[in-house]
């Protein structure tokens, strides 16, 4: 029997998250936008394209650019659905920008950005499989940075 989850009136649905990554997406979103209204995490939902997927629904939250960029790192296939008045008003795929500035801490403890006050910058490789810290030049996989 299919699981019924209530529709949201005004807010965001993050769809097509790789199965298993949904809880991290929800955690990431809550660190950007305090969640004071209804939020749902649906895990292992059937997907024609990906076989299984996770979905996050949040009432009353519209994501800013920083949050979208971080979701793109964690869930590169995700789709954002913007709901207003109970209707879908916008739908688009997330896409990480060629350079991600300022929003991510470098995981390398020896990177100068962890001891000095400066904006971090990560540059994406051609295929988007890795990102290189502009300062310490280490390579990271997107989910290591999300």
């Amino acid at each position, binding site marked *: 029997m299919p699981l019924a989850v209530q529709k949201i009136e005004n807010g965001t649905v993050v769809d097509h998250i790789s199965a298993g990554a949904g809880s991290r997406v929800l955690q990431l979103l809550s660190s950007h936008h305090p969640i004071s209204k209804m939020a749902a995490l649906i895990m292992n939902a059937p997907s024609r394209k990906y076989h299984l997927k996770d979905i996050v629904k949040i009432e009353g939250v519209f994501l800013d650019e920083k949050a979208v960029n971080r979701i793109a790192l964690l869930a590169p296939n995700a789709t954002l659905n913007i709901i207003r008045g109970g209707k879908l008003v916008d739908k688009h795929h997330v896409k990480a920008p060629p350079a991600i500035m300022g929003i991510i801490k470098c995981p390398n403890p020896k*990177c*100068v950005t962890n*001891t000095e006050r400066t904006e971090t910058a990560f540059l994406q490789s051609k295929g988007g499989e890795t990102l290189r*810290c502009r*300062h*310490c*030049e280490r390579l990271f996989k997107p989910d290591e940075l999300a």
Partner: protein
Amino acid sequence: MRDLISIRDLEKKDVDSFLSEAAKMEKLVGKPQKTLAGKLIASMFFEPSTRTNMSFQAAAKRLGAKILTFHSSTSSAVKGENLADTIRMMDGYADAIVLRHPMEGAARFAADLAACPVINAGDGGNQHPTQTLIDLYTIKKLKGKIGGLDITLLGDLKHARSMRSLLYGLAMYGAEVTLVSPPALRMDEDILKEVKAKFGAKPAQAAEAKLKGCDVLYVCRIQKERFSDSYEAERMQREFRVDMEMLKDADSKLAILHPLPKVDEIPPEVDADPRAKYFEQAKNGVPVRMAVLKKCILS
């Protein structure tokens, strides 16, 4: 060229330009120069150094510049002053900054802050671009070319920043590189993928060095300070050392290079072998760094 931060920032034509300028500089060593007369160069070493520090100072003085020497142990860094403030202050005093710092990315960070040129003299385990230029200059001077040479890199290829940068530089010129190291100290896959994608290079991996036909054997020490088990480090060092027995099979044309300091990986009896070129390599540090200072400060 204003700053010199990373070998990755350079294209082959930039490296060629440094190498040809260094060849010109070598002819000028010993003859008083006024190329950088009136310039002040801040030498900021937050970590110990013998060759890099001394050869930068020698290079600056050979070109007529004066040196402002910064000692981190007697500076306000010990009071907790951050690197940003120290760099801003030095930027106001000097015409160029030569920086060695333990944090990776420190030189890039300093270059973003300073109006004057910043030259990276080593930033933690990340980059040491002037060492790579010295290595390439030495190989080209000894062999007349870099591309097509049979070059073996031997030792701790995982931790030595000079080896990663050198592989990048050798791949740029199309050298045939073989990597020899203990399995735990192999070069990171990332750099192997990078040189393959950028230059089509496919470095071979081997368990032991085969010196027959080899043009250059580049050795680096096992970095014992990176091991929690010093016995294990010493065991690896014993296995990966270059001695006269090993050199028995090598050609007379072989050149043995080492970024120095060497510890146990090359015993002193090898120093007298005509194939040992590492002191000549260290000497090349002066003309190469003269070229770097001139190009960064005057262009």
